[in-house]
């Protein structure tokens, strides 16, 4: 079992200004690999995912997604957890598209979605000194919300 005691949840919250949830993480997203807290753990097609990935998966429709989550990492049952985080993300994305808004992102810049590419502009990033060590510790490759590796 991996130690989550040093990791904070990287799921995004907010509407005008996005930032990390920052609650204590208890699992990894099975799709993008970001650490997520119990509140942001969603089950989509037997995959444990963060709300952003769950929303993206729902948008894409049913498919044979690669299952990467390790159930032993989950500290509490998630079966009956409400999926309201997904609808929040979907609603947020609808707002961004309709009003042409590119959100400001305060927090970790290792994960991004289609709507927060400002994270690549150094002026918009508030660097968290913990980011490097966290990724190294997790042994993950940074991915975007569509599951593509950033390095590729």
């Amino acid at each position: 079992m991996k130690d989550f005691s040093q990791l904070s949840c990287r799921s995004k919250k907010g509407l005008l200004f996005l930032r990390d949830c920052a609650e204590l993480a208890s699992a990894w997203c099975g799709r993008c690999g970001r650490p997520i807290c119990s509140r942001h753990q969603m089950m989509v097609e037997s995959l444990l995912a963060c709300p952003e990935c769950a929303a993206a998966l729902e948008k894409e429709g049913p498919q044979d997604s690669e299952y990467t989550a390790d159930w032993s990492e989950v500290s509490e049952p998630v079966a009956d957890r409400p999926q309201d985080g997904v609808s929040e993300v979907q609603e947020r994305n609808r707002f961004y598209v309709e009003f042409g808004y590119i959100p400001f992102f305060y927090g970790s810049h290792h994960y991004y979605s289609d709507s927060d590419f400002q994270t690549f502009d150094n002026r918009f990033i508030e660097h968290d000194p913990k980011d490097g060590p966290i990724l190294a510790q997790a042994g993950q490759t940074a991915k975007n919300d569509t599951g593509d590796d950033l390095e590729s």
Partner: protein
Amino acid sequence: MSGHSEPIRQAVKDGRIQGQHSLNTWLSLLGELVRYKTERERLRARYGKLARISLFLLSIMGAVSWVLLPQPLRLPPAIFIAVYALDLILAGMAILGIVGYIWFRGKVVINDFSLLLIPALKMLKDDLKPGSRIKLKLDLRGPVKEKILRERKLPPGNYVKLTETIYSDRWLEMEAVLVKGHRLIFRITNKYLRYKRIRRNPRGKFKLKTKWKKIVTVTGSIRPNAQRLQVDPVKLNDSRISGKTKFKSKKGGSCRLSRKYKFKPESMADSMTVTPKELIGLSLNLCSSLSPPAPGK
């Protein structure tokens, strides 16, 4: 009705509520206000119904009594006693209904706060600075005499008389501190136009008809934390922001956008107002006009 807090009872009586509280306190206060108002309106409607039914039955019984009155000797006295007792009971019920109808009259008239403010606050909950307080000033009395801006007679045309009354009702003033110290300010003003038309029908009777128009002006301002963000004039001129909006960039580095919405409610009971989506959209437009300060400044 007894489980409600004093500020809520006062708000319903005065039609106004203001203060500086946390989001959770406001949501619980406003939620309680909605419940209290709904409960009061339900009781008022029930008493009104009681009064109407009692008056209707009383008029029938009154007619029966009036028929019976000149012939006291032909019917047994028990029937007289029963009829007049029923009249008395119905009259009592009608009085109770009328008193209850007046008693439960609240001054909170408009529903805009429950349709617009509560959902918008819930949507913005994660953007507010943790532990910060929201300054709110709500006037929920709707178009009352004190808010009359202008009243005048218009050329009647085909009508006997045509009067126009304009009410200006600034019902919401809100100031919230967002994450990183940015400030979001909203002001919403409802302008009501009431047209009273009196016309004469072919039978010679005078008929009064009232028409309402409602113009909602939403003004939002954002005062960014100058160290992190500032108003970008180039972004402000973007057609997506300025398309529907009259905008104004102020001296102190804040940005203000104003937008108007028109409604034609059938009556004042119609709850027509701006949707929370429009308010959030305006907030997004305000934030779209911001950009980080240039490096080295």
